[in-house]
């Protein structure tokens, strides 16, 4: 048995030494020499898509996302400050050993990808029209300001205000509920005030509009 173990160990070591991947194709999240782009392709793409257009709405689209917002969120995950389940279940661990340089490279990579909206029809549905109104006009009766004030007229985001155009409707709904009902995203405290009086109908409508909206 001892001989068998030694033989296997030697074989494995030889195999590992001879066939080791370069940093260009590594999935090691604790190796500072691996570039952000490599990690985006080898690891992040599994959930968020190669071009940042995730398939499953559990995972937000990162394509075209504001670089500053992306960096801020990664730091929130890494510092365990973002407490929503989607954050800690998936992202605390992924971000824990990333360097600032890697995070910056990841932000650059995804910000440069083209966003594909969920379903961009030629005309707005009734729900999307109602959502567009909230996005552009707010709800004056409840002192809810237009979303476009911070997120931009095209919902492309601005600095630390995220891009919302083309994001999964389900993800937007869930995050608005996180802001409205919890303190799990302290960095988005401003959204707690804004989302406080949104009805579930408002939330569904604005999410439907944004998920199908594409920037010019």
């Amino acid at each position, binding site marked *: 048995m001892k001989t068998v173990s030694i033989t296997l160990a030697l074989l494995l070591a030889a195999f590992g030494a001879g066939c080791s991947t370069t940093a260009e194709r590594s*999935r090691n999240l604790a190796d500072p020499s691996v570039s952000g782009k490599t990690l985006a392709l080898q690891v992040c793409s*599994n959930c968020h898509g190669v*071009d940042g257009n995730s398939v499953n709405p559990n995972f937000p689209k990162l394509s075209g996302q504001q670089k500053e917002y992306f960096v801020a969120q990664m730091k929130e995950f890494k510092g365990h400050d973002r407490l929503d389940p989607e954050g800690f279940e998936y992202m605390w661990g992924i971000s*824990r050993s990333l360097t600032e340089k890697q995070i910056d490279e990841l932000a650059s990579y995804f910000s440069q990808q083209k966003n594909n909206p969920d379903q961009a029809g030629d005309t707005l549905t009734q729900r999307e029209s109602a959502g567009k109104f909230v996005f552009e006009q707010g709800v004056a009766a409840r002192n809810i300001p237009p979303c476009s004030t911070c997120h931009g007229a095209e919902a492309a985001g601005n600095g630390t205000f995220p891009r919302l155009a083309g994001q999964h409707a389900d993800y937007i709904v869930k995050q608005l509920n996180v802001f409205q009902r919890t303190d799990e995203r302290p960095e988005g405290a401003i959204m707690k005030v804004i989302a406080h009086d949104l009805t579930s109908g408002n939330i569904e409508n604005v999410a439907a509009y944004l998920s199908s909206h594409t920037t010019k």
Partner: protein
Amino acid sequence: MRLLFPPLRGLLLAALPVALLVASNAHAVPSFARQTGQNCVACHAGGQFPELTPYGRMFKLTGYTIGQRTLPLSVMAVVNANKVKVDDPADKTTTGALTFATASVFLAGKISDNIGAFTQVTFDTTPNIGTFSGRSHPDNMDIRYADRLIDDNSDLIYGLMLNNNPGVQDVFHSVPAWGPATVPGSTGAGAGAAPILDGGLGQQAAGIGAYAYWNRTLYAEITGYKTGDGVFSILTHGNGGQTYIKGTNPYVRLALTKEWGPHNVMLGLTHFDVRQYSDQTDLTSPTDHYRDNGIDAQYQYLLDPYTVTATVARIHENIDYAAGNSDTVNSLRAKASFTYQAKYGATLSYFSLTNTLGEESKGWTPEVFWTPLQNVRLGLQYTLFNKDQAGANPNARDNNTLFFYVWGAY
């Protein structure tokens, strides 16, 4: 429930200290989760181990190498109780008595940027059921080398692997190695004849294979299985006797996959060709020839807080015995599971195993389970046999079994 299954009360009390122990360390998760730093739900649908999410499949296909190296050690234990409708007095496992079933140690994790392993050594009390006396032996083992060539336009994962159970390398749960009855000690499909692909060579053979997964669409694999002796006995030694097969026996697997929105599907084909010595004590004896052809499918819906996984697998086996006679075995298994908030779940399984000799086992297994912590699961199954020709009781329904388990991993 109190009258039907009184041992449950005791078992719940017995499980409490385990639950408290685990709860005292909320970050205590098995080694893969430590490696990625992620919650179990990242890789297991609704936290329902071992069923994998698309990400969990990618983690396995890329050789368990995502993340960072940590202590690659985990443990798992199962406490269970079986209550057969008409129990066999000689069989301590059928009376509903609380039983320490198995405990496993896993050496599992990233070895290098390309190499990773999932290796399990299990201690079980068979045949000394009801005691803590037993034996340790290799359980499922899967060691991989994997690389991924990916850019904006194409994605190719390819690798080499060594494993000891045909099908254990698969990333879908329609294959027998990961299909229904994966909870240690659960009732299973009764006494029907199962194809050799359904555990016939589990921990008895060593397979070396190559695989590729292209554009997250097409999976192809070929593995050759040999008797797990000689240098490979590390994968099989201590399993209570060795099954001897002749030469290298091919296992071929193809699968088409597609993801859209919260849905993903797989359609797969499997072929396994095995020549097993008719006289296991004489390696010059003529061989029994098994040819298994399987078709299987899986559908999955993942959108928090819900998950649904449904699988169906049909295996048709032709056997030409060395003695000149032949047999055909047909296996049909289906399973649908649902979880909510990665805490509450229900499963319904169907099985039908038949052969031309008239042996058959058919039935249903509904199950409910609760995952109070991500690494502890409590479940209750009831297996209803419509047919169980070779079972302990001539009347199939007398073999109906209530099964309770507490499954924990750290």
